């Protein structure tokens, strides 16, 4: 009986599988303070009249917060390439959904405005 019939040595020798990173409370603390700070900034910015920039700034801060949560609270920063690719592919697919639907929406009444 050959071991190779049952076990793929790549699964054992792949260094990405062997690595495991334990994120420390210190990192979590820094992330926590950063998220609270950004929450304060976004509320403050909402009361300053910046015209068209108001929603843009609010969304930029929300995206920044989301990326911080994904990378550190959700450990993606320390994960293998497989996990990073999975997460990126998901958001990319969502962007395609938005872009395609918006392009349809915008072009429906093309030239009629």
């Amino acid at each position, binding site marked *: *009986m050959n*071991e190779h019939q*049952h*076990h*793929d040595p790549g*699964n*054992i020798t792949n260094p990405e*599988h*062997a*690595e*495991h990173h*334990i*994120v*420390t*409370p210190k990192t*979590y*603390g820094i*992330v*926590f303070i950063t*998220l*609270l700070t950004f*929450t304060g900034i*976004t*509320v403050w910015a*909402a*009361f300053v*009249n*910046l*015209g*068209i920039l*108001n*929603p843009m700034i*609010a*969304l930029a*801060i*929300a995206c920044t*917060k*989301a990326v911080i*949560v*994904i990378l550190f*609270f*959700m*450990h993606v920063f320390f*994960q*293998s390439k*497989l*996990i990073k690719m*999975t*997460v990126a*592919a*998901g*958001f990319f*697919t*969502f962007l395609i*959904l*938005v872009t395609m*639907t918006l392009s349809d*929406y915008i072009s429906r009444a093309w030239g009629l405005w």
Partner: protein
Amino acid sequence: MDNVTVATETHAAHEEHHVSLPQHRHHFETPEQQREAGTFGMWLFLLTEIMFFGGLFFAYLLYRNWYNPAFVAASNQLNIPLGTTNTAVLITSGFFMALAVWAAEVRKKTFLVATLLLATIFGLVFLGVKYFEYKEKWEKHHIPGASFDISEFVNPPRDAKTGKPVEEPLSPDMAQKTQVFFSLYFAMTGMHALHMIIGVGLLLWLIPRAQRGDFTAGYVAPIENFALYWHFVDIVWIFLFPLLYLINRHPV
């Protein structure tokens, strides 16, 4: 023939060892491989959740463009101090959940149970604040349907000092469209709250298991994957809060 027997016996012994550990089931080569497979599966589930909430966000984007004056007036009905408090409460809950993963990794049982309890309590505080926000909408007849009241949007209350309306008055037609905003508001925050309720339910199941020591002997996956879910629910709120509460304060 002898060799085959020996190999099979060794293999069987090996398998038995696998089965005895929840962090290393027999169909995985190594605990690390099982862990990555679990994380991968959890992320695939979360991607379907992104699509689900993404659809709601997209509906919000389009209707906000169509009925902008109604969306601005209706959005300004929401209570920013309560929304800000809830954002901080939810981030705090997520912080304790992150600490819970660390506690499970370094096998500190008491700390793990404490952080899970704190994550639950802050989750319940969030839902409590949400209850009072919904209650106000109920009392003001701002829940879409037969008894929806547009009077506050057609005749906005006047500022005591200046005597001017606090909000741009809407035509009755446009004022009806505030119902679209409130429909989306209840659909989005309601689906978010439902996710919170499911999360709290799962926490109440995880806490006794953590107390029993299930997750502080090397089997971290349930805590880790639940934390991924809990942080995802945080992220949804991180987008809901500015889009529903904040971005309409200064209409262009």
